């Protein structure tokens, strides 16, 4: 099996990941989840570092699922823009909302 399966259409050519690549991504996701839970149990970690590590790992998992399983890496850029627009709008609105209510203090 080659690195990617290629489905050809009359006027286009898109590479699709193979089943093996999907399994590899899932293994990485499982490893990161194990990392998250392990970090949670390290009681000596400073609070800001713990939050930073957990957020970084969650962001990595989110990105991997969106790019590989939801095919944003391979699909039209318009789909990516639609999703990122909703995500950015939600993040922006609610960060302002929570900051204005002094949630981080």
């Amino acid at each position, binding site marked *: 099996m080659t690195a990617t399966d290629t489905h050809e259409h009359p006027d286009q050519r*898109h590479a699709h990941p193979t089943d093996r690549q999907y399994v590899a991504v899932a293994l990485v996701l499982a490893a990161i989840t194990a990392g998250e839970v392990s970090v949670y149990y390290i009681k000596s970690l400073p609070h800001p570092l713990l*939050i930073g590590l957990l957020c970084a790992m969650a962001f990595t998992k989110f990105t991997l699922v969106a790019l590989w399983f939801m095919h944003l890496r391979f699909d039209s850029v318009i789909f990516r823009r639609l999703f990122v627009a909703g995500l950015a709008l939600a993040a922006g609105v609610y960060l302002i909302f929570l900051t204005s209510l002094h949630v981080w203090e």
Partner: protein
Amino acid sequence: MASVTTAPAATGLPESHGDGAHATSTGLSNAKVAMWAFLGSECLLFGALISTYLLYRGRSLPGTPRPRDVYDIPYTSVSSFVLLMSSLTMVLALAAIQRDEHHRARTWLLTTALLGSVFVGGQAYEFTVFYREGLRLQTNLFGSSFFVLTGFHGAHVTIGVLMLLSLFGLSARGRLPKERAETVELVGLYWHFVDVVWIVIFTLIYLIPS
């Protein structure tokens, strides 16, 4: 009136991903555009619920259950792992149907529905345990925001399981040919979205201490 269809290359617009999509002026499937727009709007719904939880965190009445009193992290970690793996089986089902391997596609669809059901069952059990420990919807701010957020997510997973079982039924009756693979792809997008929302909930609600 006949619709005008322009080749993507001529318009400079991105090309369609393909399988089963009707010809449109953008070269993209309208159903997929609608699904992505829907998922973008769902970010706002779950953003509101997560923000409400964060806003109320640590502000519950003294003497009522707090997150660290009721959370069972190993148990929730296993549930998270189950949902994460259901994303793998979902994408394998889509890949199988795109290759015209219907028996394999049905196996993966059923596995995904089963994993989703295990997740929802686990959530129902978790809710029951919390209820027995005195945490209810009206007990305190933590109870209200926690049950509403995770309940909405659980409802989404349940709807996803029903859609997966419908796809399985369609495929079993031979009404889900390779040309209709986009239907599986749309349900898959919804399913993966439910998964990424749980990735955020698991970190922000369960793992980050208040």
